[in-house]
Each structure stands twice: as structure tokens, then as C-alpha cells.
């Protein structure tokens, strides 16, 4: 196998930014992206932007004080006014 060209590295790096910030790349793959990003403004900025994006989205509170409506079991109660659950698929 030949050495990947710079354009190969660029495309590959862009395709793996998400995995990179997840820490899912192996050591060799991580080094490949690090090496490429050192000389590529777009990918260098891309890694920072992807980290910032994940941080920002993770900052959304999963609950934010919202409560489920009191009516959430209404249909279940209506359905059980006369029977037990069946084993049908959902």
C-alpha cells in the first residue's frame, strides 16, 4: 500500500472529525489526523469547531425542568378499563 497523498489525508480527515473528537480513532489514525491538521488550516479549525459544537450541544439540559403531562397514562387507563396487556409487538 502506498503512502496516502495530502488530498487523501484531507478528505479522510474531514470524514473522521466526529470520530476524532469522540476519541474513537486508534493511535495511528489519530496521529494521521493530527499530522495533517498541523499543516491544514481547514482541518485544524475543523477539529476545534467540532469540539466546540459537541460541547455546545451537550450543554443542552436533557430535562430543563420539563415535566411529563399528567395525562400521559390516560390511554392506558382507558384501555385497561377492561383487560390485561397482550404480548403483541410494538
Amino acid at each position: 500500500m502506498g503512502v496516502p497523498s495530502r488530498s487523501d489525508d484531507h478528505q479522510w480527515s474531514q470524514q473522521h472529525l466526529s470520530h476524532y473528537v469522540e476519541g474513537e480513532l486508534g493511535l495511528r489514525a489519530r496521529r494521521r489526523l493530527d499530522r495533517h491538521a498541523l499543516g491544514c488550516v481547514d482541518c485544524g479549525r475543523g477539529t476545534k469547531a467540532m469540539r466546540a459544537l459537541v460541547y455546545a450541544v451537550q450543554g443542552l439540559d436533557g430535562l430543563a425542568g420539563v415535566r411529563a403531562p399528567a395525562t400521559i397514562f390516560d390511554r392506558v387507563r382507558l384501555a385497561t378499563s377492561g383487560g390485561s396487556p397482550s404480548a403483541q409487538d410494538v
Partner: protein
Amino acid sequence: MAPLAGRRAPGPAGTEASLIARAQAGDVGAFERLSGAYADRLFMLLLRLLGERGEAEDVAQEVMLRAWRGIGGFRGTSSYFTWLYRIAVNEANRALERRGRRPPSVPIGPDELRLPGPATDDPSRQAEFNELRRALARALAELPPALRTAIVLRDVEGLSTQEAAEIAGVGQAAFKSRLHQARMRVRAAIGDEALVTSGG
């Protein structure tokens, strides 16, 4: 972020396993106790996926009804939470198909975004940050349902890739691909400059 916030096991009067067994035997009280432990979080998920409170309430009722009707077939190969969430994602997708359009333009209002604030009192920095919140809300709203589901489950809900993939009903490789696409689209919509300068 607290990845598992709101995900609490039923209390001491009944372990989850015993509540499942009782619910499978037809005890609706046990079912409500079992599923009620996840109700707030499940409802918030539906709000994020559907964007409209009225529709989320309707779908939440349908999710519980389907869970009740299906609990006899629950075999415990996944956690009850994962099983229930999967029903919720399926029902949300059905609702979106019925709706025949994407979620409203900004279903998650900026005021509902609980982003950690910038460590500054600088008004211009705060303005940049608020603009990032609005842009993020718009970008998430514009995603197709499958990509939106991926980023909500993994990044907002903080689920593991394995669990999120199971809930989304796809393999882990396919899920990672969706997540990557979702992040790349949001990144493109917001722009690297705005993300790096406002989000860091």
C-alpha cells in the same frame, strides 16, 4: 452534562424486574410506576424530536399505550429504558411521517437551551454566545428526523453509542455515520468561525 439525569430506577417498594413481572401479569399500577420513572425524560425527548408540545403530549400517551400493550413481549434483552425509548423514537418518526413535514423552524427555543454560559460579563461576548444558541436551535430543527434523532440521543441525552444505536434501531456503524452527518450539517450551518469564537 449529566448523561443519566432523570433516569432513575423505581423506588424500594419494587425493583424494576419485579415491576416488569407484575406489569406483564396485568398490574397497570406497576406499569405506571415502572414507566412513570422515565416519563419526564421521555416527554422531553419527544419535545426535542417533535418540537410541538401538543403533539408531544399526544405521542407520549401513544408511547405508553404501545408499551403497555407490548410489555408482555418484553424479554429483557435490552434495558426497559432502552426498550421504552425505542418505542418513543418510532412513534415520533411515525408522527413526523404523518405530519409530512419537518419539525417547526425553531422547536427548541433559545430560552430552553441550557448552554453553559461564557465565563465573562463582557456584553459583546454574551451577545455572540446568544447568537450561537439561536443558530444551534435553528440548525438542529432543520435536520432530517434520522439525523436529528442521532444527535439528540448521543449528544443531548448523553447516551452511549451502543445504547443510542439500539434505540434508533440501527447498528453502531450506521449510527456513527448518522451522528457524523448530523454534526457536519450543524457545523456547516453555524460556521467554524462562530463555533470556535463563541463556543469555546
